[in-house]
């Protein structure tokens, strides 16, 4: 099944958003005010996209990212779309994170107890945040296979902890449950659709 039929892709260049904010003269994602403005701009862009959507947030043009901005642009954005009263169905992949961005991003994710998917190279995704060994194992399995049916997962992951891990990964929206196919899909499988 083609991923485009299931989920819409949408790429957001954070560097371009910063440029569009007239008050910000440089490629640094610093200060809470800037972070709030950037998050608002992302949410406005997202609201124009039909659900469900996979949004690739591209940080590759960003030089410095501080903790306040990481909290606003990453943690709060993701948290808003994880909660049950989310404005729309959206999934996120963080792209172009430099090693220096990872420390603030991981810190704010752990603090808010949320998970995020990051693209470490073309088609190569990783999980960020604080997760259990079971969650890591289930996520890696789905990511490697790109998709797995419920039955398949029930066969491989029979332990109660593994089942709980799958539920948590789904709630955290780092895997995508496709009701029509009764299967779990990795966000990587949707990214494959972007590459093809």
């Amino acid at each position, binding site marked *: 099944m083609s991923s485009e039929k299931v989920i819409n892709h949408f790429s957001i260049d954070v560097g371009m958003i910063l440029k569009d904010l007239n*008050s*910000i*003269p*440089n490629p*640094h994602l*610093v*200060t*809470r*005010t*800037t972070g709030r403005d950037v998050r608002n701009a992302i949410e406005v862009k997202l609201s124009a996209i039909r659900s469900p959507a996979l949004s690739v947030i591209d940080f590759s043009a960003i*030089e*410095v*990212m*501080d*903790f*306040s901005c990481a*909290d606003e642009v990453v*943690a*709060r954005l993701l948290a808003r779309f994880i909660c049950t009263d989310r404005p729309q169905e959206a999934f996120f992949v963080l792209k172009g994170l*430099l*090693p*220096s961005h990872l*420390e*603030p991003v991981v*810190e*704010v994710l752990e*603090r*808010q107890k949320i998970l995020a998917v990051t693209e470490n190279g073309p088609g190569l995704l990783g999980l960020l945040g604080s997760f259990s060994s079971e969650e890591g194992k289930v996520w890696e399995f789905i990511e490697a296979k790109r998709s797995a049916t419920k039955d398949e997962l029930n066969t491989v992951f029979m332990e109660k902890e593994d089942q709980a891990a799958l539920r948590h990964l789904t709630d955290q929206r780092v895997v995508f449950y496709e009701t029509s196919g009764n299967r779990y899909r990795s966000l990587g499988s949707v990214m494959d659709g972007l590459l093809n």
Partner: protein
Amino acid sequence: MRKILLPKVLDFQTYDVVFSEVSGESTESVVFDGMNLNWIDPNGMVNLLAAGSVILDKTDQTPSLILPKGQEVTSYMERMGFFQAAKGIFSTESLDEVKQESATSDVLLEVTQIMQNSDIHKVVDKVQGRAGAILTNTLGYAPNAVVQFSVVLSEVCQNIIEHAESAGWVAAQTYNWSHRLGRLVVVISVTDLGVGFRGSLSREYSNRFGKEWNDTKALEAVFVHGLTRFPDMGRGQGIQQIRKQVRKWNGMVSVRSGTSRIIDVPHWFESSSLQEGLANFPGTQINIVVPKRIQHEL
């Protein structure tokens, strides 16, 4: 006219002397006598501006500043942008004596006023351009330290905008602490004239502490426990992250607010981690010292 004598050395260990002179009730006009000043660091400069501002506020007259007799000190203050920042705080006739010098490359970050978001962006951009060579070649840090340094600056400056409800100043410079430490250091100083930690937290936390609520409790709440007046999760990380990073660099962080100062004391510095009963002064004063990296400390 009241004369406030500046010490010969005006830095993070001596600016309290000036604050205690300034904190009295007197509304008499003031002259700051810097004639004998022969050394001033970023803490000295930004806190002299703060002291001048408090006097201006109390007396409704701009205080005078007698310049150091040593041309080197005046010249250095000019290069650090002190006199530019002092316009409107100290009387102009005292500043007119200063010969304008063009900006030079030996300054890490001139005295910069922080009033709004864009000021912090400018500070980060400036330091990104200047600090790389200093941190890697001179202080022995890994190349990515320049970004971490910018993040520390950003977070420390945001303390002014997010909590002080007032303007402030930041400055940073590299020094050779040959006598004190036997090595180079970077000194970052940030000061504001805002509500201070106690003022920022009072509404949310004063009832919890009751009669024990004071500057020390407020400092501990922010510095040690990461509390903030904002109820949402994700806030209150700034000072915590600064402490964490500076600790990795084997550095020192001190925060003075109201009548107390709290310090993360590194092994190379002798001080108690808490100082109380200081002269009451508005706002918050933050001092960060990052020493040159030494192999055996890695």
